[in-house]
């Protein structure tokens, strides 16, 4: 029976009751109208690109793709691989390995690692260079575990105005895991760093087609030997109690708590002590931010060439509303729970506040379990909208150093350090 027939038959039925006018009243009373009784259309797909305005969606707009050891994730690029984690995987403090975002720089990434050949090598300006197999890493050192957020420097790059080239991430280039492994400091001490050394350089199994010596050939990152973060670094062979997925850096990856993921070298294989500053592309040119508050600058200042830059380091405080995500209507008067996460690269989050009037008034949310200074911290808050309408929910976090999320955008040519207060429109419907 098609739609017209069904409508006709209903009309004739109603006529036989002699109650056509009554039925119209009932339809109204049920909140029905012509549109509601119509057959729904197919679900529409999101647009294939956003811009030149800011990406209005929580995530980026790519299609889903199923990569090895992964659930379907949002495809940014396929070679090299960049995949974004969909919003709903952030309901919990720990991000599942199979949903953890992926970002490689060069196309030569391993499909296989043979552990009979693989060794972690500590070399360069040291007294005693050495190499360790995975069993040696697991057995010779006391394992340490720590919860830490891994966030891409370009997370939320698609928010910037004007838009900048690069991976057009929404908010899903981040994840939190319990990392277990060996303290980097123990490895450095074992090798004996020679006096006069300046930096420690990290290299993984990633290689590119470009000429030797250029950023298109190797991806290299370095940290100053005087940087206290080295005492917190872990060479991790476990991620949430499981081996790392190949795309997240099997067999070991460097964990640099509080720092953007550019330093978290995947498939870490060479730890090299340098006696001169690392001047490779990924330190001298890439991953640098203006030496200004929030790395903020303007296209004009960049063009004029008067922007001094420094290597990107710690990530600023951020918070997100994860559910509801605005995709479904909420009946007025229903007591729902708002849920989300918050984190900071500068220490513990100790307050999350929520606004339901677009940021005018704020109410403190209840914080979830504390998994450590560098972990996601979940938050929740009961919320009831008494009357139907559109509500703009906003969320902001404050960390233990008293850093609070600002409500102003930031802009730099790399598309880094975005941490503006997030907003989400929620539609509340009539409940009767």
């Amino acid at each position: 029976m098609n739609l017209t027939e069904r409508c006709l038959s209903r009309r004739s039925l109603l006529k036989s009751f002699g109650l056509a006018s009554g039925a119209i009243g009932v339809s109204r009373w049920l909140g029905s109208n012509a549109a509601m009784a119509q057959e729904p259309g197919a679900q529409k797909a999101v647009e294939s690109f956003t811009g030149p305005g800011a990406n209005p969606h929580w995530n980026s707009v790519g299609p889903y793709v199923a990569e090895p050891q992964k659930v379907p994730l949002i495809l940014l690029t396929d070679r090299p691989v960049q995949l974004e984690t969909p919003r709903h995987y952030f309901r919990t403090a720990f991000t599942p390995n199979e949903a953890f975002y992926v970002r490689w720089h060069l196309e030569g990434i391993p499909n296989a690692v043979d552990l009979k050949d693989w060794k972690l090598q500590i070399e360069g300006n040291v007294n005693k260079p050495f190499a360790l197999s995975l069993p040696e890493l697991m057995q010779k050192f006391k394992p340490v575990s720590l919860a830490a957020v891994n966030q891409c420097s370009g997370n939320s790059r698609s928010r910037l105005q004007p838009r900048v080239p690069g991976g057009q991430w929404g908010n899903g280039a981040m994840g939190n895991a319990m990392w277990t492994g060996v303290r980097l400091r123990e490895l450095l001490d074992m090798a004996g760093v020679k006096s006069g050394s300046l930096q420690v350089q990290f290299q993984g199994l990633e290689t590119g087609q470009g000429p030797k010596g250029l950023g298109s050939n190797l991806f290299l990152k370095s940290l100053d030997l005087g940087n206290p973060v080295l005492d917190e670094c872990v060479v991790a062979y476990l991620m949430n109690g499981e081996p790392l997925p190949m795309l997240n850096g099997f067999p070991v990856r460097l964990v640099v708590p509080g720092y953007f993921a550019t330093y978290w070298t995947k498939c870490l294989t060479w730890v090299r002590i340098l006696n001169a500053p690392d001047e490779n592309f990924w330190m001298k040119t890439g991953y640098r931010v203006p030496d200004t508050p929030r790395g903020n600058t303007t296209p004009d200042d960049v063009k004029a060439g008067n922007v001094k830059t420094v290597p990107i380091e710690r990530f600023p405080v951020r918070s997100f509303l994860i559910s509801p995500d605005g995709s479904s209507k909420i009946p007025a008067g229903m007591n729902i729970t708002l849920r989300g996460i918050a984190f900071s690269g500068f220490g513990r989050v100790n307050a999350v506040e929520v606004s339901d009037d677009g940021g005018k008034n704020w109410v403190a949310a209840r914080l979830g379990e504390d998994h450590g200074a560098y972990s996601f911290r979940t938050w929740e808050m009961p919320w009831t909208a008494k009357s139907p309408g559109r509500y703009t929910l906003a969320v902001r976090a404050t960390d233990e150093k008293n850093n609070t999320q600002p409500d102003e955008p930031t802009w730099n040519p790399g598309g880094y350090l975005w941490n503006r207060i997030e907003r989400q429109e929620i539609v509340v419907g009539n409940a009767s």
Partner: protein
Amino acid sequence: MKNRVSAIFVVMCGWVVAGGIVYADLKKGHYRPEELGSMRQAARTDLSPDSNYQVPAYPVPAGDLAPGEGLQDVQIYCNTCHSPRYITMQPPLSTATWEAEVSKMNKTFGAAIPEDNAKRIIVYLQAHYAPENRKQ
């Protein structure tokens, strides 16, 4: 009086019945045929207890670069280091930004794209991926 009460009663019964019919129609499921997506569940791979840890090849879904003059140059040169999705993933970018991007590939990353080809690539990107002309 009695007649009026029974009349109201009959009308109300009618309303309830009619309401039921309308409501039944509202909650009926609607379905429509659609193409099955290409994203199938992955089969388990055979694992052997040796020291080699291997995963299947990483998929490269077909790209959809705009047709036009210079497309072939893009496919030959840009594809060396990255798939075309690096282009289509970008937001619409200004003509100056596209020129700078191609120049960066040559000067910073050593792509060694001959001058004529690089020019054609720039013109192609500016013609299809700028704010004023981007379609897909």
